[in-house]
């Protein structure tokens, strides 16, 4: 178990180090997030939709799409110089490779969300008082779910010609449940509903995470080996 985790952390650390040097994914994802928030601000008609009604959806559309952008780079990095073969030749389990990649992707997407959330609060004049903890919990749970599936799909789509298109196409149906639940829960939190009301959504998100992280861990080896 220790070895498994050690390998996973080594892979994750490597991904983070590479990203720190090249800064490709993080910058594009962050730029996308900021741009999305700005566009939504101009797109809404002040008379028809209040900021607060739109807010949860805007937040999650931003999180979801910038998440996909961050996920894209996950395996393009392994494609250069066939680095993936280097990983596959190592005496490490494919599951450990998956967890390493997953953790790195989580770190990236969380980083984008950590920047986007305060911006969102500022741009949309959202009152987070008291709800912050709940909003963050919901964000963590939903993100953990779709990043797991996104990691598996990124491993697949990198082998295709139009990877940047294939990944969102495949991933979006899988993002629908966690993102819609997150929007529902966030909406309730922002309108001041008590935390107990969102317990159901938290449970659902947790269930989704449990099921899909397990499923992805189980199918990932089939992607790596013939």
């Amino acid at each position, binding site marked *: 178990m220790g070895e498994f985790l050690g390998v996973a952390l080594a892979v994750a650390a490597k991904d983070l180090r590479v990203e720190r040097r090249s800064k490709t994914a993080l910058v594009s994802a962050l730029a996308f997030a900021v741009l999305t928030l700005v566009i939504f601000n101009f797109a809404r008609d002040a008379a028809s939709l209040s900021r607060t009604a739109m807010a949860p959806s805007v937040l999650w559309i931003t999180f979801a799409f910038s998440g996909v952008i961050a996920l894209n780079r996950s395996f393009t990095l392994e494609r250069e110089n066939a680095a993936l073969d280097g990983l596959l030749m190592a005496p490490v389990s494919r599951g450990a490779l998956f967890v390493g990649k997953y953790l790195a992707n989580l770190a990236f997407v969380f980083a984008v969300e950590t920047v986007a959330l305060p911006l969102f609060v500022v741009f949309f004049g959202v009152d987070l008082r008291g709800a912050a903890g709940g909003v963050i919990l919901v964000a963590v749970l939903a993100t953990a779910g779709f990043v797991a599936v996104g990691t598996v799909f990124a491993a*697949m*789509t990198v*082998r295709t010609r*139009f990877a940047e298109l294939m990944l969102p196409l*495949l991933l979006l149906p899988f993002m629908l449940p966690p993102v819609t639940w997150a929007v*529902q829960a966030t909406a309730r939190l922002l309108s001041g509903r008590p935390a107990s009301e969102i317990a159901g959504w938290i449970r659902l998100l947790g269930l989704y995470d449990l099921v899909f992280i397990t499923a*992805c861990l189980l199918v990932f080896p089939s992607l790596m080996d*013939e």
Partner: protein
Amino acid sequence: MPDRVAARRIASRGLVLIAVGLVALAGIYLLALRFTPVERFQGLPQKIFYVHVPAAWSALLAFSLVGIASGLYLWLRDPRLDRFAESTASVGLMFSIIMLTTGPLWGKPVWGTWWEWDARLTFTLILFFLFLGYRALRGALADPEERARFSAVVGILGLVLVPFVHLTVYLFRTVHPQPIVLKPSEPSLPWEMLRTLLASLAAFTVLLVGFIMTRYGLGDGENLGNGEDRGKGEAYGR
């Protein structure tokens, strides 16, 4: 080549089933229009229900079959399972398109809009995207073995997703009640309507199986012209 002969036989049996199904469908059409009472509130347009519901169910059935075949493929690695999954996914895509186009046809006169986010339509729309993604991924992968393996992963993850989509769609529905609610299984449905619905379901299932068999037997763009033999064990030149 015995496998090719077997494939042709499956295809011709499939065509027979399609013919039977189409005749049955014509019969249902007649049944629905002449021998089934008109629904009180919605009038004549409601009758599209007899096409709409079975098409949605067929798409879901097809998707489940793809998921199961995908799981079996990852376990057994039999190319026939991959071919079956591909055939079923193609047919499922077709059925979901039928459902999504008949839905608005019904929706416009009844709801006044082309689209409503009712549970069944939304659910089938998501199935449509899953089928589309499956198809697109297959089209983008050249190596047959890799294509089979990767699409099997999508298939099985998709099947795992279905209950969650169901939860999402039905949860959403209870939060935003629809103007017209049409439950998939309606115990209070009068016998004449239920009979027509069940008959239509049977006809659609026959059609589904027929199309799958035909597609499976005749092969597709993936295997033709590659010099690969179709059939057991030969799909990847193994």
